[in-house]
């Protein structure tokens, strides 16, 4: 078991990748075998993630050097800087790993029946697993260049998945926009990595952070990295691709795309907290993030309320929810250098934001799956054509309501637990932020009441008389997420202590991250 945990960080990535390449071979022989293989592999990966997270949170940061004589041999004899590809898993990485594992498993189970009739399923699952592997790699790597590579893996497979249904013109357009935006963002990230490499001849995040001097070139690199990651995570005003892509992707893919956005948010945090950390002028960078977050909240929710396409509406709501995270983390960044303020409210704001990340993945994932279920049965995403679906899809409507209430921050669901942490802590930083946050939450409720009113309530139309509940695997996938929402809402203290607090500690504690790589060597 201890050997398994010692190797788990690479096994998580490698098993996912190997399954991705086995999928076409097995799929030619038998569909059933392929589906079983994928589910088993992802369940094994989820188990590894949980074991790894438990180990990281109980003991110490987990370092894995690929190809070395020992996993923790980051600086071999004769060298003074880390060489080879190094994976580094701290509390935040493990937390993100848990989010990715849950959502990809749910998405696969949902797709198994939602896409049963589509062609090209071998390719679909290969891409899905590649995307999961890319996201695992993004959050586990300790190396800036690997971050870029895994980001590209995630975005290329994501674009192919968005454009998977080739018969629709708009899904082709969505895939095109996603790949163009991703390509520009990641090329600029590579440019910034080049700027950093030109000064320090290093690519490892921990080693770079140890030698960071915050010169002029570092500032330019910081700005480019920050705006590129904000572009990838969809913060206003760089969010416009998000509604175009999430709304056209097949059934379960938006849930994965949300997690991909969160992985970009993770990269933003890694950059600003760990890579730059204490050298950075925190209040300016923090305020830039806060302003982006505020804009995301406000523009996201006001655009969402206008939409008549159900997935597009939820996509705009995603923009709004990521605004909450950005505000919480921005407040944390702004007071990073001030231990008093950090203790008083900074840590709590970051706790709330990190907690909101997993909650966001759960409830927005559920909402997208419900929207996918509606599309599966009636073949349209247009709210104008929906009415009275609650008569025949009772369970789906209840699940939708659950996700909607969680998103609007209604107790006792998980959205409330994280939002109250953000409200209360941000209030001590600047009361106006909290007021805007509460206003946005109220508008979010209005947004979802619009959907609930026009899709599920009302007279049962003759043309939708024959609509039935979706097949069981889809319902099961939705219920897993719903159970998560209720559990996280009823026991927020447990979740905070187990997985959120270690993640926040990892963010604040830059020295531990550096020490895990550099060891005793200065």
């Amino acid at each position, binding site marked *: 078991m201890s050997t398994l945990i010692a*190797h788990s960080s690479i096994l998580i990535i*490698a098993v996912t990748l*190997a399954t991705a390449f086995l999928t076409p*071979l097995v799929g030619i022989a038998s569909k059933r075998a392929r589906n079983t293989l994928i589910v088993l592999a992802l369940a094994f990966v989820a188990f590894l993630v949980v074991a790894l997270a438990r180990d990281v949170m109980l003991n110490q940061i987990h370092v894995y*050097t*690929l190809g*070395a004589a*020992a996993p923790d041999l980051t600086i071999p004899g004769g060298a003074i800087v880390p060489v080879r*590809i190094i994976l580094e898993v701290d509390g935040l990485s493990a937390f993100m790993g848990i989010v990715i594992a849950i959502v990809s498993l749910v998405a696969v189970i949902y797709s198994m029946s939602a896409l049963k009739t589509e062609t*090209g399923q071998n390719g679909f699952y290969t891409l899905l697993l590649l995307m999961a592997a890319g996201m695992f790699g993004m959050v586990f790597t300790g190396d800036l260049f690997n971050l870029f590579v895994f980001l590209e893996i995630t975005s290329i497979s994501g674009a192919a998945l968005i454009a998977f249904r080739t018969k629709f013109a708009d899904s082709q357009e969505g895939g095109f926009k996603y790949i163009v935006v991703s390509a520009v963002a990641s090329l600029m990230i590579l440019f910034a990595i080049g700027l950093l490499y030109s000064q320090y001849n290093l690519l490892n995040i921990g080693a770079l952070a140890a030698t960071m001097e915050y010169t002029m070139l570092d500032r330019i690199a910081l700005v480019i990295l920050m705006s590129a990651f904000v572009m990838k995570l969809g913060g206003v005003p760089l969010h416009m691709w998000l509604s175009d892509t999430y709304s056209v992707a097949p059934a379960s893919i938006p849930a994965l795309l949300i997690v991909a956005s969160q992985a970009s948010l993770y990269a933003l945090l890694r950059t600003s907290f760990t890579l730059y950390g204490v050298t950075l002028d925190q209040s300016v960078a923090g305020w830039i993030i806060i302003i982006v977050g505020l804009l995301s909240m406000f523009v996201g929710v006001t655009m969402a309320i206008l939409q008549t396409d159900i997935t597009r509406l939820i996509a705009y709501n995603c923009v709004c929810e990521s605004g909450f995270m950005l505000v919480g983390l921005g407040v944390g960044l702004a007071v990073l250098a001030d231990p008093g303020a950090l203790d008083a409210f900074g840590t709590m704001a970051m706790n709330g934001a990190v907690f909101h990340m997993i909650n966001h993945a759960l409830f927005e994932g559920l909402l997208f799956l419900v929207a996918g279920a509606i599309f599966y049965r009636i073949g349209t995403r247009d709210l104008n054509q929906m009415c009275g679906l609650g008569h025949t899809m009772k369970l789906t409507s209840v699940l939708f309501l659950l996700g909607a209430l969680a998103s609007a921050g209604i107790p006792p669901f998980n959205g409330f637990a994280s939002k109250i942490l953000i409200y209360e802590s941000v209030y001590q930083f600047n009361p106006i932020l909290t007021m805007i946050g509460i206003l946005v939450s109220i508008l979010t409720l209005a947004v979802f009441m619009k959907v609930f009113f026009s899709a599920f309530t009302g007279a049962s139309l003759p043309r939708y008389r024959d609509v039935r509940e979706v097949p069981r695997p889809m319902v099961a996938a939705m219920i897993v997420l719903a159970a998560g929402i209720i559990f996280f809402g009823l026991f927020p203290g447990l979740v905070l202590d187990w997985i959120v607090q270690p993640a926040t500690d990892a963010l604040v504690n830059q020295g531990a991250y550096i020490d895990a790589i550099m060891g005793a060597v200065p």
Partner: protein
Amino acid sequence: MSKIVRTVANQLILFVVIFGLYVIIQGHVTPGGGFQGGAIIASGAVLLIVASGSQEIKTWLRERRLSVVESSGALLFILLAFAGIGTVFFFNFLVGSRLFGGIPSVGPNPGDVWTGGVIPLMNLGVGLKVMAGLSAVVLALALFSGGEELEE
């Protein structure tokens, strides 16, 4: 294309493949490697497509076969990486054993191909994947521009 072009292309493809394999196998001692060699072989596929037309090539260069080769290449790479997991993932477990010519000296050395341990084999895996993948891409684009869809 004319008969001359087709005949020349058919003869030339052998040399293209041999050169590609050379670049793949020598990848760890000279500039080159799996991607470059695979791309060279895939350029041979481009040559065939240009010479004989995508319709004719399609009859034997099938998407499904390419996909099998591609997946096997990637699997070969990952399995070799897994094989080192007794020490560390990606550990070069073959290098240094007597069968593989011992550990080469640091600095200038004759550059014997077999001293690389698993690296030439991994290059081969990458080469297979890139060859199949790029050929599939080129073939797909050629068929697309002719107004066709790929077979499932």
